[in-house]
Every structure is written in structure tokens, then in C-alpha cells.
């Protein structure tokens, strides 16, 4: 049995640790998203290692879902491909467990609520914890529906990452209250995708988020590459890139090309933030 001292010294969540390290270095986190099982689960595992080598600070693993409401065409298609391959939640949990044995990179799941609900909330959190996951992003579980999930995730010591949007305004305070890890700041009105520009006044938006919370702020949705990442970096603590990577994976002709292209892309973004 652990003594109380040992409990208090329980390992710092990897997400907190990462943001603290980066802050000391004056750098921003690069949070990289891929869909588990696209093109297959072995490539997913190896892609995580390659992205970490390339400089990714946090890895977001998407659990594919049939009806991803917050996602644009690129990630929708990626989910469809993964599901066609027959990837199951337990396959993903096992893959993550394997990844965890080889790297200490913070890992979060991007997962739609129905996947958790149907799998069983408690069972999902337990499996996620056992596999070494540090946080969950649930894009269709707003503040009003979070209570049960928040309690359970705290019980299982997994961070439930709060999401805010440019339309949130005065909701930001409540959303971030008792938030853990970082705030996922959705850059724009819309779904995920690769955009040429973002019309939101990011400076003003991030000022507003900072007014309500001290959590690290990460900006995601629509970020296409180094140029946009560099532009947003001064206003936040992390940059989230998903669709651009997923698109690159699908556009590559073979596995070697996937690994090279993604690793190079990650490095090119990491260099400038």
C-alpha cells in the first residue's frame, strides 16, 4: 500500500510536465493528431515514434467514429478508412499500451462521446489509464454534459481537456474552471480541416481565454503548416495539427514515404514554434 507521502508525490501528469519543460525553454508545444488505424494500426504505432523523433510534444490519437460531427472531410474520410479496416477500441488500447512502453510522450485520445458511452464509461477510462493515456478530448461533450465524465476521469486520473471556441465568450470561465492539462482553443467557427487562413482575431480571442484561466492554451482546427503555426505561436502555448498530417499520410505512396513526409513536416513546424 502506498503511504500518503508517496501518493502526494504521485507522478506528475505527463501533459503538465511537458508544458512546464517547454515553458522553461521558451518553446511552444506541437500537438500532432493521427487517426488510429489509418492506414493500419502498425503504421499508427510507428508513426507516433516518428512524430516524437520529429519533435512532436504531445500525440493526439483519434478513435475513429462513424459520425464525427466536429470533423471536416479529411478526418471523416480517415475515420471511414480506419473503420473499414475493422479497427476496434481494444486494438487501439493495445497499440497505445505498446507505444507507452517505448516512449514517455504525453498521449491523449480524441474520442466522440458515443464511443465511450457504448464501450462503458468506467471501462473506457480504466482501459485508457491502463494503456498509459494521459488525457481525453471529447469534441461533442460540452460543459452542460460533462459532469459524469469529469468525475470519472478524475477518479481514474485522466485529464479531461476543456474545449473553447470563438463563440464561447463568457462561457470560457466555467468551461475552464477546474480544467486540467490545457485548453483546446478551437481557432475558428467550423470543423477540422486544412485552411489557408483563419478569420478569427486570434490575439483578442487568446487574451479573452487568458483572462479566465491560467491553463496552457493550445490552438487547433485549420492549421495548415509552419507558416500559420508561426503566426499563432506567440499567442498560445501549443499548436494542434491534425488534418494536414492525416492528408499527408493518405497522399503518400508507401509506408516509407508516410514516415518521411510526416517526420519532416513535424520538424518543419516544430522549428518555428
Amino acid at each position, binding site marked *: 500500500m502506498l503511504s500518503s507521502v508517496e501518493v502526494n508525490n504521485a507522478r506528475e501528469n505527463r501533459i503538465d510536465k511537458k508544458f512546464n519543460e517547454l515553458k522553461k525553454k521558451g518553446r511552444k508545444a506541437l500537438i500532432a493528431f493521427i487517426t488510429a488505424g489509418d492506414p493500419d494500426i502498425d503504421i499508427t504505432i510507428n508513426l507516433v515514434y516518428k512524430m516524437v523523433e520529429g519533435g512532436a510534444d504531445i500525440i493526439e490519437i483519434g478513435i475513429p467514429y462513424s459520425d464525427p460531427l466536429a470533423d471536416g472531410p479529411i478526418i471523416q474520410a480517415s475515420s471511414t478508412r480506419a473503420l473499414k479496416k475493422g479497427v476496434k477500441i481494444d486494438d487501439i488500447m493495445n497499440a497505445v499500451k505498446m507505444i507507452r512502453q517505448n516512449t514517455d510522450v504525453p498521449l491523449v485520445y480524441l474520442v466522440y462521446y458515443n464511443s465511450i458511452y*457504448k464501450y462503458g464509461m468506467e471501462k473506457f477510462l480504466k482501459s485508457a489509464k491502463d494503456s498509459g493515456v494521459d488525457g481525453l478530448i471529447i469534441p461533442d461533450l460540452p460543459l452542460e454534459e460533462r459532469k459524469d465524465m469529469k468525475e470519472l476521469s478524475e477518479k481514474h486520473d485522466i485529464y479531461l481537456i476543456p474545449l473553447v471556441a470563438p463563440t464561447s465568450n463568457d462561457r470560457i470561465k466555467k468551461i475552464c474552471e477546474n480544467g486540467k492539462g490545457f485548453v483546446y482553443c*478551437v481557432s475558428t467557427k467550423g470543423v477540422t480541416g486544412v485552411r489557408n487562413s483563419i478569420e478569427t482575431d486570434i490575439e483578442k480571442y487568446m487574451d479573452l481565454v487568458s483572462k479566465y484561466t491560467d491553463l496552457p492554451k493550445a490552438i487547433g482546427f485549420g492549421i495548415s503548416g509552419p507558416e500559420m503555426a508561426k503566426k499563432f505561436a506567440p499567442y498560445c502555448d501549443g499548436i494542434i495539427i491534425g488534418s494536414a498530417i492525416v492528408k499527408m499520410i493518405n497522399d503518400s505512396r508507401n509506408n516509407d514515404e508516410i514516415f518521411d513526409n510526416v517526420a519532416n513536416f513535424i520538424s518543419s513546424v516544430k522549428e518555428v514554434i
Partner: protein
Amino acid sequence: MVGRFGKFGGQYVPETIMNALIELEDEFYKAINDKDFIDEYKYYLREYSGRPTPLYFARNLTERLGGAKIYLKREDLNHTGAHKINNVLGQILLAKRMGKRKVIAETGAGQHGVATATGAAMFDMECEIFMGEEDIKRQSLNVFRMKLLGAKVTPVKTGTGTLKDAVNEAIRHWVTNIDDTFYVMGSVVGPHPYPIMVRDFQRVIGDETREQILSKEKRLPDYIVACVGGGSNSMGIFYPFINDSSVKLIGVEAAGLGIDTDKHAATMAKGSIGVLHGMMTYLLQDDEGQIMPVYSISAGLDYPGVGPEHAYLRDTGRAQYVYATDEEALSAFMDLSQIEGIIPALESAHAVAYAMKLAPSLRKDDVIVVNLSGRGDKDVNTVANVLEVEL
């Protein structure tokens, strides 16, 4: 809890639209408590859509079956051909009141799309309709009607290319255009406040039925039978009778090729609880919560979920949910056409099919009301195909 029917309902949507839903709820309640708004809504129901619709005693059908008296609530006689216009007029007037100039909607059979395009034309609003690619093929007549009315019809190719995917795409479009766009949801589904709002704009069906049956029969009906896809026509006719325990409420789902095949849309019969389109309800889904492809000959019932209030009525036992197959619906479609001279929508034919099974088992002084939610003109091509008739 706000926006819940027992455990069902809720608001499982991206944060980006939460403030818009809160505003919508607020504006909706202000509107329905505003006499001017209600007067205007009633004016358009009466003068534009032709309400009240008749409650027609189907004498021939009743005599043929030799059992209970069958009344048909003639929602098929509404302007645009189905009950969908009731809800659209309410929501379009609300959009106008909120200063929105752009409306979007999803559609399955195309009836809600046509109704929305109609409302938008009358109130001079920009209108975009999301419709699954498969449904576009099945309902080409309605697609053309929407275009004639000035709407843009956007085909949805993702997923199964049916109603479920059209809802996803409409929500995604709404997230992107949240500031100036009003989403006219077509059924009692989606995040709160939609299930309540759509029900309240459809309850006119039940309110009229109540008055009409009391006038004709001097009593309430024994059964009310209505088809259920998302469940707006059934919720509309059920709702005013919920506290009348003597009135049995029966929802008829689409059993497609049979509920033991993988080609049906019988959510209540075969579904389990989950979350889709912002609501917790019964869904046709696999063990991992992936939404399963559904099938029905009628595009309007081809939906893997059901309104959360129906889920609640089922679990509390207040309403009973049964099903009719494609074959049964087609047979009822033919029968009603030939016996009563009324061509029903294939959706409504599911309700007729069940009523035809039920009637002979009842006494002659029992009363069944069937909600004839729409007319079958739009389905003539589909039926001709099945009958292998070339038009």
C-alpha cells in the same frame, strides 16, 4: 434536467454551437409566449397551409376490414403535401424574428426540404438543403421541387448518403456559419431545444384531432397510430393525448426487409441507447457505438435514431412501438389508393399497414385515428420501380 426526457435528449454538440442553442431556446420560449407570434403562426397555418386538415372517416376501409372505425388525419392535404410545413412555418417565423436571412435544413424524403424551401421562398430567405446522395436518387421529384422554389440542394456523399449523413452535414455547415444561419431541423431530434420546439410546432395535429374526434364521436379515440422515423408527425399527434391514459399511442417504425435482416430502420425494436446528432436516445449501432446503415423503402423513415421524447414514452410505457415491413407498407399503399382514393406517402403507409392489422381485432365501436402524414405523389416512381412498371 433542462432539455431532457428522463435520461434522453441533452446537448451533445461541439462547443461552437452551444451559445447559439442557448439563444435559440431563449428566443423560442419568448416567441411562443408572445401572442403576436402565435397569431402570425396560426395565420400562416390557416391561410397558407390550409389548416385545419380534415379528420376523415375512412368508411370504405372500415367496412372492408370489418372492425374498428378508422379515421385518417389528413396531413397529406397540407400545402407542400405533408405535415412538415407546420414545423417549418414555426421555425421560419422564429428565424425571421431573430433577424436571420439564411436557413438550412436536412431532408430525407425531401418533404422537409420542400417545406423549408417553400417557407424560405415566401419570406425571401436564402435556403440550402442538405440531402443524402442516395435519397436524391430516390426522390428526384422533390429535389426538382426544391430547386424550383429557389433552394440550393447540396448532395451529401459521406457515410451512407442518407438522412443521418444529411443531418451531420447540416450541423457541420451550421457550426461554420453560426452567426447568420438558422438551422430548420425537420424532426423531433437533435440537441435541445429542437425536440421540444419541433414537437410544439407539430402539436397542432393532435390539438385539431382532439377537437375533431370529440365533435364526431363525442369521445376520445382508443388508438392513435402514426409512423416514426425521427418521429415528428407521431409526436405532434401524440402529444396532446399523453395525459389521456385511455388513448393508446402506437408508433410504427420501418422494418424494411424484416427486423431480423440487416435492412431495416426499426430503432425501437432493435436499437440500444447512445448519442447521435446531439441527443441521447435509442440508436441502431454496433457494439462499439458505430452507427449502422439503415434501410427502408421510404426515405423519410430511413433514420438510425429516434426523437428522445419517443425514447422516453417507450421506456415509460406510455407509447408502444411496432413496425411494418416494406411489403406491408406497399400493400397498404395500394389498398388505401384503391379503396379510399387516397395515395399515401410510403412513410404514412407504414401507419396505415399497422392500423389495417389492428382494426379487424377490435370491436366495431372502437376508434382508431391514423395520422396520414403525407401524400404519395413523391413515391410514385419508387412504387413503379417495385412493380416493375415503366413510366
